[in-house]
Every structure is written in structure tokens, then in C-alpha cells.
């Protein structure tokens, strides 16, 4: 079955339950007037409109880059594609196996050992005993964890956590790969190895959706770009066309300070 993503009129709103108090509500509404993304919904609740009427379709072979400024809705869109956030309106349809590399901790339990976390991940993908063993071995070797693999993740250095998360997430090859940009970072010695593995995974996937501030990555990896602004699709088209327009207003700053907060 060919992989496919269909998104039609997708809207997502975040409820702000803790901003219910009258005065706070008014302040926030006033402050957000410029953005017009804080709205009251039908039940007079304060909501942030994270995505508004997003529509696109991706077929097998497409490599989509999501660009836009902080808070434009890139991560929310990835989460919606991953099925974590369910829309308030519209339609999301994913065909094909899916792996989402969303946040660095990837739902890891810090108290569990690396091996136990890998076991849980294997079970999530409905693997059986031998499959999980192969997965664990692959992750242990690739992440260069050595004996730490059987110790709680809590005592790992931050670099080790990133390596474990990366190895675990990239050990399973999906048809549809959703990736947030933190995956492109990592400690220097690990980065080349990681890039190689990631590139083989990206080549192996039928569809890639990548959210990033790194313009050169978008240009080299993607075939199509969607530029999000204030939760709406501002531009959708071939890489060169959209990226030229985007970096025209981007002042070049994102390339200098890519948002690869991994601390």
C-alpha cells in the first residue's frame, strides 16, 4: 500500500483552562489582539487557534518541509499528523506505518533503564521477543551506551539521552516519517554517524515531513515546502520558490541560531 497523507481544513485549538479568571482573560485577549489567535469558542472558553484551515495532500515520494517562525504551528501540525492531537474540525488521513520523532525524550521514562525503554518501544510497535532483542542490540550498539544501557536513563548525560532517543527512534523504519528539527542536532562526534543513519531512514521512508529552521536542510532534503504563519498556510509549493520568499523576510537569523535546544 502506498503511503499517503491527506489533510483537509484541519483546525486545532488549544483550550486555556487556567486563564479563566476574568481579568486575566481580558489582559490576554488584549495582548493577543495583534495576533488574533486567542479566541473565545462557542462555550466562551479562551482558546489559542494553533492551526486554521490547513489543507494539503502528500503522496508517496514527497518530502515536505515545514517552515515558519516560532509559534507558527509547525510542531502542532506534526503532532496532529502523528495523531497525538485530534482536530476540532477537518480531516486527517494517514495511510501507511508512521513514526514520529517529536520530542527528544520520546515518551521515555527516566527511571527505567535504556533497555527497558527500548522494550516498551518495541511492544508499542507490536514486536515479539526476538524482534525486541534485535531492536535493543541495534540501539545499544548505535547509541554507544555500553554498560549504561542497563542503568536508569536518569543518570545518563544529556548527550547519552539524545543518542539513546535518536537510536531508538531511527531503529524503526516507517513509511511516513514525521520529524521535528531537534533530530538534526547532537554532539559533534555523533553527528556524522547520526546524519548517515537519518539519511538512510529518510531515503527509506515513502513520505517525510520535516519541521525545521535550518534553511539548507530544507533545500537539500525536501521537495516541497509549506510555510506556516499564525496557524495558516502562507505558501505551499516547490522548495526554491517558497524558500526564496521565506528567507526574504527571514533576515537570515534562523540560520545563525537554529532552534536546536537540546539542553
Amino acid at each position, binding site marked *: 500500500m502506498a503511503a499517503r497523507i491527506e489533510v483537509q481544513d484541519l483546525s486545532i485549538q488549544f483550550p486555556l483552562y487556567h486563564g479563566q479568571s476574568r481579568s486575566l482573560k481580558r489582559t490576554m485577549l488584549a495582548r493577543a489582539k495583534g495576533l488574533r489567535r486567542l479566541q473565545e469558542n462557542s462555550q466562551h472558553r479562551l482558546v489559542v487557534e494553533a492551526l486554521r484551515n490547513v489543507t494539503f495532500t502528500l503522496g508517496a515520494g514527497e518530502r515536505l518541509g515545514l517552515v515558519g517562525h516560532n509559534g507558527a504551528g509547525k510542531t502542532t501540525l506534526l503532532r496532529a499528523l502523528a495523531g497525538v492531537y485530534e482536530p476540532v474540525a477537518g480531516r486527517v488521513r494517514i495511510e501507511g506505518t508512521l513514526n514520529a520523532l517529536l520530542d527528544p525524550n520520546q515518551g521515555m521514562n527516566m527511571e527505567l533503564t535504556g533497555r527497558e525503554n527500548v522494550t516498551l518501544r518495541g511492544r*508499542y510497535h507490536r514486536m515479539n521477543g526476538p524482534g525486541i532483542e534485535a531492536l535493543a542490540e541495534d540501539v545499544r550498539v548505535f547509541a554507544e551506551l555500553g554498560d549504561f544501557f542497563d542503568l536508569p536513563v536518569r543518570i545518563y548525560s544529556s548527550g547519552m539521552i539524545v543518542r539513546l532517543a535518536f537510536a531508538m527512534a531511527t531503529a524503526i523504519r516507517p513509511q511516513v516519517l514525521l520529524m521535528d528539527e531537534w533530530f538534526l542536532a547532537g554532539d559533534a562526534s555523533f553527528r556524522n554517524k547520526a546524519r548517515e543513519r537519518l539519511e538512510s531512514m529518510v531515503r527509506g521512508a515513502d513520505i517525510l515531513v520535516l519541521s525545521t529552521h535550518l534553511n539548507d536542510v530544507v533545500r537539500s532534503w525536501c521537495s516541497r515546502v509549506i510555510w506556516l504563519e499564525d496557524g495558516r498556510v502562507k505558501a505551499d509549493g516547490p522548495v526554491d520558490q517558497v524558500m526564496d520568499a521565506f528567507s526574504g523576510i527571514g533576515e537570515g537569523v534562523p540560520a545563525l541560531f537554529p532552534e536546536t535546544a537540546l539542553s
Partner: protein
Amino acid sequence: MNVISDPQAAPLPEAERGFTIDLRHGLGFVARNRMAISDIARGLSLWRLALTLSWLDIRLRYRGSVLGPLWLTLSTAVMVAALGFLYAVLFHTTIRDYLPFLALSLVLWSFIAAMVSDACTSFTQAENMIRSMRIPFSLYIGQIVARNVLILGHNVIVIVVVFVAFQVPVNLNALAAIPAFLLWLVDGAAASLLFGALCARFRDIPPIVGSVMQIAFYVSAVMWKPDFLHGHQSFLVYDPFYTILQIVRGPLLGQIPTMHAYISALGFSAVLCIFAWLTFLRVRHRIAFWI
């Protein structure tokens, strides 16, 4: 899905192949039911993950301790022994009569109490996982039910030891506890759905639930035998905690509970399940935003 080190491996047959969420025509009652049922079905198909999670929960709680999960058994044993001798004197009854009752009561009640208090955190405890992967919410329900059954399994040892030591006769009536226990599991799952969702949204509910459970412990004939009420037992059928406890405890002590107790237990369970299902229908798609 393939493991990279073995690129030839065939995709796993049961791996999920995408999903569809279609709200173009709004989210009607039928659509909500369909999505909730598919959530439960996918949760059941991930039962291995739920079991692994619940076993790791217990392992984690006792990591680094010498006795490990046996502490569950030991602390229950100490509690039963200490309270048993004291209350047998307070209630002017014989140890021989009271201690087996107390051991059984306390172990079963601790299952109910832990189930209810875990129910309040069924979704909030899984915040990390909920926000990073598409996992059916019913999986966490399975995790909590399985974890409490495993804990009960450790505590049952205390009951067995006490029953053997006091040579308590167990007759065939005990078999009636099996369907009743299955009802407990259904109730436990329903409570986790209901309280898990409510507590994710309203953070004031766990303390309320906690104090209700404390009162329930004292009024629901856990520590004292129903016949201590001297003819006023009939009021107990209005206490859901009592009747639900009694339908498992009674048979194990050799008495089949009254018809009223069964009606009460089934009635309250049905109400709980209906509330839980309606709540789940209403809020399932919002939980990820709440935690």
C-alpha cells in the same frame, strides 16, 4: 516496520497502518462511539505493552530494595497481624474468628482503594507518552488494572497463609467470587476511564476522591463484620463500596451474599460504566490537550 540492522525483515503484520480522523461533518454521537470503540480495540491489541508497563511500574517502585515486590506482601502481613490482635480485643471477638475476616477484607479493600486512587492519575501519569505517540487511551486503563491485579497477587499470599493457619473452611460457594471479581475488573476499568479523564481536566478531584475513599473505608464494613450492626445491616446495601466488596468477600468466607447485595453491586456498577462511557465519548479527543 523494519529494524535497520536487519533491512530484510518483513514489516510486522499487526503494525498499525495509519488512521483517519474525519470531522468535516462535525463529531456526532455515532462518530464518537466509533472512535471510542476503536480506541478500546486498539488498546486491547496492545495488551503486551500494557502488561509490560504495569510490571515495570511495580519493579520501579521496588528497584534497589532487597525484598522487592515482596514488601507488598510483608507490609500487608504486618498490618493484618497488628490490627487483627488489637481489633479482636476491641470488638470482643475471638482472634480465630476475626483475623481471617480481617486479612481477607483488608487485602480486598486495598485493591479497591488503590484502584480508585490510581484511576485519578491514569492519564496524567502517562503525560510523556500521550504527548509523543498516538497510543489508545484504553492502554493506560489496561496498565492500571493489570498493575493492581499484580499487586493483589502478592497480597493474596497473606490471605492464604492466614486461612491455612486458622484452618478456615472454604467451600464451593467460593467459586461465586470469580464472576464477582471479573465485575471488579470491569468496574476498575470504568473508574479509571471516568476519574482519569475528570482528574486530567479538574485537578481538584483527586483530593476529593481521597477523602471519600477514607470515609468509605470506615463505613463499608471493612474492619468490622456486618453482623456487628445488630439488625441494621439492611442499610449497607445502599453503600456501593460495601456491596461490591461483599460479592467477592462473602463467597470466600463461605456465604453467598444476599440478592439485594448483588442487585446493588450490579446496579452501581452499571451506573459507573454508563457514566464512564459517556464521559469517555465526550472527552477522549480532548485528553491530550489537558494533561
